[in-house]
């Protein structure tokens, strides 16, 4: 299985738009949205949910007041300050580790699991999509990412598909680490700005920390030529292959609203650039991406 992941460090650089274009351009693949905090790939691909499953990822400690002897041992051992002076448990600070359960001499505490999100299987005109949503205020995004990936891998095996395209989340923390592990290659999408470069540097650090190969795309490159140059210099200094640059194109949000892809039919300037990026990606990482032949039945598929 080849897993291609889109990351950026900084948010809003165009990961999802590029992932959606790749979804259209490659023929046999399964899609996964690992940005479970703010999953958007389904919006770009007009997905219809086929299956839904509760996700019980987080646990929290609850106390049986009838058994509690008020000794405060739980509060002493809790390293997350989740147990207050009156021994009340703060569900937002509780990590569900169970240290208090172990420490309680009266057996008054136990861990309970709760529904912290939903895993969703959706059909898109470009293949099945494994995605998820967190229940507002819930916190286990890393584990939900792991589930989204596992389900996507199973789906790919069932359908005998070799390629998994995964949209990632911004940042470098827990959800990103959960998505990077096991990935074959990462497409880093940045934008020409001081933040874009700073965040790219840290994102590349994480990707390399886990020994995964990466390549770069500079999106909205014409918005600031000077910073695009700096980023390209950074890439060459860090031996980071460049897949290409994409111009700022107001058609990208417009097409998104209309539910049309930028790489299909009247291809837009950003769409043309994304097709070139896809081509470079195929050169770099072999034919795992299965470039789609220009099929006449595409209109038919759109109609379904």
């Amino acid at each position, binding site marked *: 299985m080849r897993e291609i992941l889109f990351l*950026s*460090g*900084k*948010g*809003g*650089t165009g990961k*999802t738009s590029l992932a959606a274009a790749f979804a259209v351009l490659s023929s046999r693949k399964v899609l996964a949205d690992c*940005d*479970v*905090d*703010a999953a*958007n790939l389904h*919006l770009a691909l007009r997905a219809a949910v086929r299956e839904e499953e509760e996700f019980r990822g987080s646990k929290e400690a609850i106390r049986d007041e009838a058994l509690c002897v008020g000794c405060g041992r739980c509060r002493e*051992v809790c*390293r*997350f*300050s989740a147990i207050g002076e009156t021994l009340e448990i703060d569900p*937002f600070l509780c*990590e569900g*580790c*169970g*240290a208090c359960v*172990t*420490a309680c001499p009266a057996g008054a505490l136990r*861990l309970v699991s709760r529904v912290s999100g939903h895993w969703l299987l959706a059909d898109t005109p470009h293949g099945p999509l494994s995605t998820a*949503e*967190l229940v*507002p*205020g819930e*916190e286990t*995004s890393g584990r939900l990412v792991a589930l989204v990936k596992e389900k996507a891998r199973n789906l790919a095996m069932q359908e005998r598909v070799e390629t998994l395209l995964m949209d990632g*989340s*911004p*940042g*470098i*923390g*827990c*959800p*990103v*680490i*959960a998505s990077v592990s096991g990935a074959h290659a990462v497409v880093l999408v940045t*934008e*020409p*700005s*001081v*933040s*874009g470069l*700073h965040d790219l540097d*840290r994102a590349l*650090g*994480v990707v390399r*920390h*886990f020994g995964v190969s990466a390549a770069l795309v500079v999106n909205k490159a014409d*918005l*600031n030529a000077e*910073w695009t140059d700096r980023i390209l210099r950074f890439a060459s200094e860090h031996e980071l292959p460049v897949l290409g640059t994409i111009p700022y194109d107001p058609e990208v*949000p*417009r097409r*998104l*609203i209309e539910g049309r892809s930028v790489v299909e039919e009247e291809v837009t300037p950003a769409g043309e650039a994304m097709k070139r990026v896809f081509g470079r990606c195929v050169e770099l990482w072999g034919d795992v991406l299965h470039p789609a032949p220009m099929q006449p039945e595409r209109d038919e598929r759109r109609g379904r």
Partner: protein
Amino acid sequence: MKVAVASGKGGTGKTTLAVSLALALAETEKVELLDCDVEEPNVHLFLHPRLVSRESVNKLLPVVDEERCTRCGACVRACEFHALGLLGGSVVVYPQLCHGCGRCGLVCPVEAIADVPQEIGKVEWGTARGLRLGRGILNVGEAAATPIIHALQRGMSSDATIVLDAPPGTGCPTIATLRGADATLLVTEPTPFGLHDLRAAVGVARALGVPVAVIVNRDGVSDRGVESYCRQESLPILLKIPFDREIAASYAAGVPLVDAFPKWKSALLEVFSALVEGLK
């Protein structure tokens, strides 16, 4: 007053607005700006602070004493995070998965587990242009952002107006940031992605009981979905900033909005007054 600038979706303009709001407020009051996006902290790129102090944020990692360990596996079974395993006849710790909760040490019958602090990030305090600035930095390769956000928030002064630059998303780091706030400004853009993530962010803020107001950035690019959602949900839109190549260019170069375009200063101060008014 503690106000968080958050968004759900990344790249909507949180940082540039948080920096600009803090600069505008600092002309008349004592202001602290905290960069709570510890995975990708960017505030310093706009303000170039002078560093005053730096401290490590540690997690306590278990270390197993091979001599004492009887390989009973109690620690492995007790760990909720699968951070311990029995491999080749000895207990191994997977630092990436460990939350540093100490439960393994509590269950070990022969006291073979000790804690060793391991740095997962830093908190830095500095000053720039009349502001006190704090930022958390997650070490590359570490997963847990929230302990760093908590450490950062412990350093807030009680007598200052606080502006918190929140991370994107709706997960743990965002929750940790919003819990430290009296109100939140959600910055969005008028696209289907912006709207979808705004809904998620509003959900989190409401679950935490934090009042919400909205700023629409890069207005004019597209649809009116965000506006009709805000009307439906009775969320005030306190400011709209149009898409403008000049604004994008100044941001790209690391120039705060209010420096490049001083006319936005009064608009941001009005946003802040409206927010304070709304809390009464």
